[in-house]
């Protein structure tokens, strides 16, 4: 048993963190968020580095690495809040790669791997997908029906209405399609690739939590009231401890789910539901705590914690919130308990 990353994976993590520390600085993220603009220069650079194709097979122009590597990038992009459509496009590509027909893979994956095509993933009900992340610039949509089946819809085949979501670091759109628009993914059965997509969002949430905790610890060490750093008060330090516990709960389950995706796919559905349940809760709690621990400053537009809170709110409901994933888990547990238990 080994919970550590390999040397190669650590390299990816370090390279990504260093790059984003220089490119997606808080000031730059703020500039794009306030203008509600994607950072096209950064996206172009990430595409040149091959990031969008990290987990896409080499035959389609990707790097052919696994979910763990993809999750590393999602986590780092979450930490930095980079205003790029990475997560949405990676999730769309994942589903097409896992569940699409050979023809669909050949048609869409090369563009998604190079970043020339931007994908987005949304859950659709009654012909409409609300709040599709990065839907503003997406060229192709993977829309998941309530029964888990999916279809691929090009932008031209859909009605795309831009929406101003609370997280201005990424675009959002409401996407409506006619009943027969686009084509069914694969044989039309439930998309197994959704499990991986859930892991990717969960990993991004882990990065957001990690950054929120880091900023909070820095702040409460520095901020003095009554002559001492506020972080020396247990009301504050115990809040920080709780933030760490929530973050580690999310991190451990997300890491496990990422591992199952390639090493033990039979466990993926359950592990992904666990990861998303833990990460959705942690994302909300930890970023809310970050605002609280920053005091009045945390409530101002000028402080950067609110961007984390807003991104976490969107991610927490993306592909189902904690409650819906716990309901899924309960169903799995019920099936298991249904086998002879005395």
């Amino acid at each position, binding site marked *: *048993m*080994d*919970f*550590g*990353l*390999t040397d190669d*994976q650590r390299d990816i993590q370090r390279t990504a963190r260093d790059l984003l520390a220089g490119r997606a600085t808080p000031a730059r993220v703020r500039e794009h968020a306030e203008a509600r603009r994607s950072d096209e220069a950064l996206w172009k650079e990430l595409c040149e580095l091959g990031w969008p194709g990290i987990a896409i097979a080499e035959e389609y122009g990707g790097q052919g690495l696994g979910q*763990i590597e993809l999750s590393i990038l999602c986590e780092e992009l979450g930490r930095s809040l980079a205003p790029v459509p990475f997560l949405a496009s990676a999730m769309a590509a994942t589903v097409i790669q896992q569940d699409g027909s050979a023809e669909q893979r050949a048609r869409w994956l090369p563009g998604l791997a190079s970043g020339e095509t931007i994908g987005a993933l949304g859950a659709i009900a009654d012909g409409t997908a609300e709040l599709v992340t990065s839907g503003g610039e997406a060229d192709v949509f993977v829309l998941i029906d309530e029964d888990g089946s999916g279809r691929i819809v090009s932008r031209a085949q859909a009605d795309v209405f831009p929406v101003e979501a609370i997280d201005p670091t990424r675009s959002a759109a409401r996407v409506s399609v006619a009943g027969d628009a686009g084509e069914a993914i694969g044989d039309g059965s439930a998309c197994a690739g959704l499990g991986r997509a859930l892991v990717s969002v969960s990993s991004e949430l882990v990065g957001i939590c990690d950054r929120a*905790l880091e900023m909070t*610890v820095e702040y*409460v*060490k520095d901020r003095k009231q009554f002559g*001492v*750093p506020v*972080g*020396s*008060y*247990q009301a504050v*330090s*115990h809040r*920080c*401890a*709780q933030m*760490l*516990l929530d973050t*580690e*709960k999310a991190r*451990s*389950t997300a*890491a*496990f789910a*990422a*591992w199952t995706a390639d*090493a*033990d796919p039979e466990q993926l559905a359950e592990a992904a539901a*666990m990861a998303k*349940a*833990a990460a959705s809760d942690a994302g909300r709690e930890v970023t809310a705590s970050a605002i609280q621990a920053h005091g009045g400053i945390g409530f101002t537009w000028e402080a950067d914690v609110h961007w984390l809170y807003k991104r976490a709110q969107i991610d927490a409901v993306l592909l189902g919130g904690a*409650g819906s994933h*716990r*309901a899924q*888990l*309960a169903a799995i*547990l*019920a099936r*298991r*308990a*249904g086998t002879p*238990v*005395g």
Partner: protein
Amino acid sequence: MDLTFSEKEIAFRDELRGWLAGNPPAPEPGEGGEDAHYAWRRDWQRRLYDAGWAAPAWPAEYGGRGASLTESAIYFEEIGRARVPMAANVLGLLLGGPTLMVWGSDEQKERYLAPILSAEEIWCQGFSEPDAGSDLASLKTRAVKDGDEWVVTGQKVWTSGAQYSKWCMLVARSDNEAAKHKGLTYFLMDMEQDAVQVRPLRQITGEAEFNELFIEEARIPDANVVGGVGNGWKVALTTLMNERAGLGFALQIRLRQLLDDLLAKAAGRGLLEDPRIADALAELHVRCESIRLLAWKGLTDVERYGQPGPEGSLVKWLWSDTNQRLTQLAIDIVGAEALTAGESWSYELLRGRGNTIEGGTTEVLKNIIAERVLGLPRLKAVA
């Protein structure tokens, strides 16, 4: 990342699993109270000992198997899975023996280790005092040198198994002048002397797992000092570190079993259809899995980097809180009759209240996490 066992580890697990299947403990005594129950666990340890399974983590030269940390964790998983009792001398096996292996003299290892393993001599732990709980280093039990003996006077509390014990791992103040942590010495005290009185401490479950020790001029030969005079704090930390590591792993497995029992109960009553119950159970499942993953991660970190980190405090905190939630939910699932005396869930509910206190209160764990993991400034103690 590789969350699978090696071939060697699987072979270890299969051998143990096979042995446990073929060698169940004697039936649990229905009457005779705690004494009969303890005798049963002592007999069970003897069986484990005869087959070489009492303490696989001990080095072969002391009668163990030199099992790796992972194998040792597998051992506790299998012991838990087979639902056999804990060995009677758990404190000697997990805390006393390993502490002696680090700090004991050759003579001490020679004299004490074998009878720990065979359950011939039971060990208990005399650390906490009425006025020294979380602030352990403020303990007041005094040890005064008298020729080649020490004369010890004081009071200890929360001493589990004291009534069955031959030896007590005792930390006492041997130097009043020295700084708080420096004046302590770690002794092995013979419990079989009149100067040591054991009084059972009845807890909220009604049973007496723990005791108070009243020590009035007990005699301890100088040869029973462990790790040197004035070095007691360091030796005690070795004991406490083993407490977190070994016991911690066994506890998360026990939690899993309780959750599985509760799930079966809920399913049997059709309560998994109730969204509120289903949601609460699913959350417990997520927590249980997270505890398992964090416990394994902590363990493999030790294998890779040596010492366990302060992150172990997270596991203990999450475990204790989860066990309390679980036992409280059990009352809702089983119904009011779960609250009648003698019901196992009522026992679990009450016993669970101790979880966030014993082995480091949740409040102290949060302090440790804040200061040692997050690097937050320490709160200044009020003089």
